[in-house]
């Protein structure tokens, strides 16, 4: 049951990245870190302290960073590029497309401050399109872990996977509820509850909101299946199908534009294999703005009550 999930603490997912890259670095001497003048924001201090010779500061030059990372892979290194999500994707899309994705380079593009919860820095930094941009690239793996512990596990796991990866995480302190030292299986959906009335598919920070909404539904006697789709590509088609064939309706929740994000990936599975009513929770074709993370989630319709409302709508549509 969702009510049995315990919050261990509140921590920034980017902190999980910082710990994860340190551990990945200890396990594999080929892991190197690059940053475009954001080593503090990206929590790289511990890695740099232990492995100063495996760190590259490229300056505020993201395009150069991606190219350098692509080049480093040819020498057998496993480069992790680090900057904000906005500058990790849109800023350098052609570099990623040509030099990383098309040529199948083993670059790990690690992106913090994604989504609305970037907060005060506002629209210029608040990318809500990056999942779409990255999942459209052939061969790119796209991972959006839900909390600190999972971000740490994913950061380590991608060092053991050969191929380009986009790893997306965030800025604020957030409920940390998945186990420490968990195994992380790329491409495998995580079922947080079993239910038969409705599926809620979420990624990133929104997984916690989905749990909150799911708890309220459980209290109302609705049997909810909350599924953490931490890997948006490759998508766990089998897992999603198994869930929707049982529940017959779904809600998707993401800190991203509903055009081109997790919701569309789930909807494509449904459309192709098992059509059901699906309601989307996410930003709706808009840019963000400055504000406190929680307030922005409310304003843009990404809060727990929005997931609840979407669930109620999906349940009604299922009946008709």
């Amino acid at each position, binding site marked *: 049951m969702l009510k049995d999930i315990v919050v261990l603490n509140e921590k920034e997912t980017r902190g999980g990245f910082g710990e994860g890259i340190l551990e990945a670095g200890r396990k594999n001497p080929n892991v190197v870190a690059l940053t475009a*003048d954001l080593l503090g924001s990206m929590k790289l201090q511990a890695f740099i302290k232990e492995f100063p010779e495996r760190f590259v500061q*490229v300056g*505020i030059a993201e395009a150069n960073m991606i190219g350098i990372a692509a080049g480093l892979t040819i020498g057998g290194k496993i480069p992790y590029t680090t900057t904000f999500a906005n500058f990790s994707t849109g800023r350098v899309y052609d570099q990623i497309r040509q030099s990383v994705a098309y040529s199948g380079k083993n670059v790990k593009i690690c992106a913090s401050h994604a989504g609305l919860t970037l907060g005060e820095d*506002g629209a*210029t930094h608040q990318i809500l399109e990056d999942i779409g941009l990255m999942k459209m690239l052939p061969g790119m793996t796209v991972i959006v872990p839900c909390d600190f512990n999972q971000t740490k596990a994913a950061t380590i796991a991608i060092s053991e996977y050969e191929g380009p990866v986009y790893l997306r995480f965030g800025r604020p302190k957030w409920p940390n509820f998945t186990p420490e030292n968990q195994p992380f299986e790329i491409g495998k959906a995580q079922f947080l509850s079993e239910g038969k009335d409705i599926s809620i598919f979420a990624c990133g920070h929104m997984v916690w909101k989905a749990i909150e909404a799911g708890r309220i539904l459980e209290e109302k006697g609705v049997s909810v299946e909350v599924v953490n789709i931490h890997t948006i590509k490759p998508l766990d088609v089998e897992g999603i199908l198994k869930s929707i064939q049982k529940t017959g309706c779904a809600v998707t929740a993401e800190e991203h534009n509903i055009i081109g994000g997790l919701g569309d990936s789930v909807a494509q599975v449904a459309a192709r294999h098992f059509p059901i009513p699906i309601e989307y929770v996410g930003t709706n074709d808009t840019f963000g*703005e*400055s504000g406190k993370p929680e307030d922005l989630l409310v304003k843009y319709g990404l809060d727990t009550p929005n997931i609840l409302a979407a669930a109620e709508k999906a349940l009604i549509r299922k009946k008709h």
Partner: protein
Amino acid sequence: MDAKSTTYLAGEIRKTALSMVYEAKSSHIGGAFSMADILAVLYEDVLHVDPSEPKMVDRDRLLLSKGHACSALYAVLGLKGFFPMESLASYGQDGSSFLTHISHYIPGVEISAGSLGHGLPIACGLALAAKRKARPWTTFCLMSDGELDEGSNWESFLLAPQLGLDNLVVIIDYNKIQSLGFVKDVIDLEPLIQKFEAFKWEVFTIDGHEIQEIYTTLSSAKAARNGVPKVVIAHTVKGKGVDFMENKLLWHYKSPNATEYQQALGQLD
């Protein structure tokens, strides 16, 4: 040019920006202070702008490419009457148009910026438009030193002389610090004058806190229509005006707490 009133305006810019950043708990006060004197001179005596008509066709354009330091630009626009000063209270608050990276929603602001390395290409476009339309305005682009790491700028530095954009004046706020490091340690820009000269720009070097020097240089750079774009390297101090902020890496991101706020305000008065 009245150095006294410009110095006073610079002080007001700093105090206003400090209060905004303090109230909003936002960042980037160091980079706002380093360019405060430059902004004061620009708005007091150099830019042809009209607060009552911010979209005036032949206004001079100032593009703030280092959009994170917007508190100082919002402050000077408010002080000059582009909008009521009270509206600055909403800076960084939920629902406000005063985003914590410079926002084109605000009267007097030409472009939104925040992602570094975007201002100069747009400035080149504006300068080119003025040339093609035979309009008199001058385009100014205020950039940071760390921002010069971005390759997009160097594409513009290469192109502007080719296009003969002598109506373009770039100002570099050379405060020697970027996000969490000194510029010389991240990517040393030196020798900077020679780089620009090799790119065929007319180069000026000034103390970015000397009001008279800023004025003389900017006004002559603006006036000279001699076929070449101008770049003004302004040597500045990050956090200028508050002793515990000056030259400190910390004050790129840090937001002042109540004690620091009062102390800083005391020093600026």
